[in-house]
């Protein structure tokens, strides 16, 4: 969707819907409830004297007086009780290929019912979805999509999974948790696309409820996080470690921004850290940056920079390193690290060939890590 079109629908007045918009829209008209916000008590906060509260969901730990909202803009202190304003208030909904998240080692070739509410707990200057992530829920049109209806919708569209994505699912934690529970009971999987800016306790809870997490690792130094993300790197690394030690599948995306986070030494340090803390089998996607939001002054990432980053990561021992946002590039394919044959061939978000058999390379029987069925 073109930026302008997306903006006019999502932040202006409408709802962000993708390629399968027509059938979803027809179905969702019944749920349409624009303008109203939810007032469901939030989880992971503590009550303080004088009607103040402290949110414990993310590392910001916002301390708020009555009537104030957190940094995310979607959680509000109402008389000393912390409310989520976006429970079941969906502002973006698509039936996406799971490769678009991207997940390359999780049910390849399937679709994921992908949804988001408004809000985010960081403010990346290069945000690709700022029209929904950097706004308040009353500034977009929302539909009411309770957990059970989200599961119904996924089943109706033959999507084996629900993806919490686009904005920052951490900020709609309660809705995500309830939807994951309902949909899992009906045989669906749940995947999360997140910046990983979440405290350990809610993350541990989340990991018990979902099947895969993709973390956007936005850089590998604190200065970059402070200046361009408005967050801290440390908690994100802790989150990655926690996910890697869980049973939940993990993939990492690193958006390579020219001149800002593309230093080869830094990418080398990041790759070494990933090998050590998440293991050599964690898929790493180097994604191409396009000028957006507050960083329109930079060029798109040169292909050579992406290829260089990939080369560094492979040399450090990571086995599955991909290049994203470059449709048709050979680094979209999954290559068997044992025999060197392509086991999953992709073009853009489409899987063209899948040579895996029971999670093994068809040619040499080498196991390929992932969730394949």
């Amino acid at each position, binding site marked *: 969707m073109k930026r302008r079109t997306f903006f006019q629908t999502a932040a202006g007045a409408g709802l962000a819907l993708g390629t399968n918009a027509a059938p979803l829209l027809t179905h969702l008209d019944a749920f349409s409830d624009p303008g109203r916000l939810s007032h469901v008590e939030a989880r992971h906060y503590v009550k303080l004297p004088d009607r103040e509260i402290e949110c414990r969901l993310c590392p910001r730990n916002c301390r708020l*007086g009555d*009537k104030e909202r957190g940094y995310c803009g979607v959680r509000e202190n109402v008389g000393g009780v912390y409310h989520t304003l976006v429970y079941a208030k969906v502002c973006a909904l698509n039936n996406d290929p799971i490769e678009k998240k991207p997940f390359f080692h999780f049910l390849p070739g399937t679709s994921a019912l992908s949804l988001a509410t408004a809000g985010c707990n960081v403010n990346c200057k290069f945000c690709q979805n700022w029209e929904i992530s950097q*706004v308040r829920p009353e500034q977009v049109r929302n539909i009411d999509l309770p957990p059970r209806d989200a599961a119904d919708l996924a089943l109706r569209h033959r999507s084996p999974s629900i993806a919490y994505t686009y904005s920052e699912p951490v900020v709609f934690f309660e809705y995500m948790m309830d939807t994951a529970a309902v949909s899992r009971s009906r045989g669906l999987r749940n995947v999360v696309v997140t910046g990983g800016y979440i405290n350990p306790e809610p993350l541990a809870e989340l990991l018990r409820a979902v099947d895969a997490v993709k973390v956007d690792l936005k850089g590998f130094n604190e200065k970059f996080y402070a200046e361009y993300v408005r967050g801290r790197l440390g908690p994100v690394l802790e989150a990655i470690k926690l996910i890697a030690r869980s049973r939940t599948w993990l993939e990492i995306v690193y958006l390579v921004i020219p001149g800002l986070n593309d230093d080869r030494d830094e990418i080398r340090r990041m790759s070494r850290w990933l090998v050590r803390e998440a293991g050599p089998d964690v898929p790493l996607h180097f994604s191409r940056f396009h000028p957006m*939001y507050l960083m329109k002054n930079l060029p798109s990432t040169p292909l050579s920079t992406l290829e260089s980053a990939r080369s560094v990561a492979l040399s450090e021992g990571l086995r599955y390193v991909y290049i994203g946002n470059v449709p048709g590039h050979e680094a979209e394919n999954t290559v068997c690290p044992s025999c060197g044959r392509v086991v999953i061939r992709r073009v853009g978000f489409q899987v063209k060939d899948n040579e895996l058999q029971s999670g093994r390379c068809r040619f040499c029987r080498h196991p390929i890590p992932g969730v394949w069925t």
Partner: protein
Amino acid sequence: MMPPSRVVSVKAGNIIGRDGAVDPKRVRLALEAGLAALAEAPGIREALDRLFKRDERFGIKINTIAGPALSTLPETSLPLARLLLESRLAPKSVVIWDRTNRELRDAGYTLNLGSSGPSVLGTDTEGFGYERELVSHKNIGSLFSTILSRRVTSSISLAILKDHGLAGVTGGMKNYFGAVHNPNKYHDTGCDPFVAELFETDEIRSRHRLTILDALVVQFHRGPSHHPRWAKKLETFLFSLDPVAADSAGWSVIERLRARAGLPSLEEEGREPTYLRTAEKMGLGVARSDGIRLVEIEV
């Protein structure tokens, strides 16, 4: 040219009645006295002539986030709007505005989109909303209220002076957080440098003419929410053409009240409003107390 760092403090006794109601007639008296003193004019007509240009479209940005107990009330903003409408300035329009119609109603306003009297409306009024093009300036990236960008050529920040848990003090400059779609993104690091940088945007700086701080009741601790235990009836307005000096003078008021109540200073609590010094460094006004001349009058 008037000294830019002068702050006029007007104390209006009995402006708040025993029942807690604000007397709009006393408000008008206080406004007239404050504006005349600020302009060093013999009367309100001459003062307005000196302070503003003719044929402007005035916007009075109020603050209604905290409900009726701690918001800019109609009894305060309407007399100001009427002063402008009755003046020789022949304003094309006067609009009293804030973020949302809900907050305006909660603070006691009757919305007015009609042609008579001052308009009263929130940015979420149908047909208004936020601009679609981002304004990017230093650390600021925001969509501005179209009320400000399209309806207002001359802006008055009529703000509540109060303690703020994160910023230390909230006053006339921070009041403009309510002019953008994403104020929640500007509360990090004591709102510094965000308050100053937002004010520095062309959208605000080119329109801002005057700060009036409503210190009728001052929440000097545990703000910005209302807690009667730490709220003091001062029955005072502060006026300044210098937005930084106005807020700095307001900060002094809060510190005095805190000291009287035996509370630590904001600096001792690690939340002094550092954004004021930042604003001064950026050339937006004077933050140093020795650079501000306070004129105190009573009506």
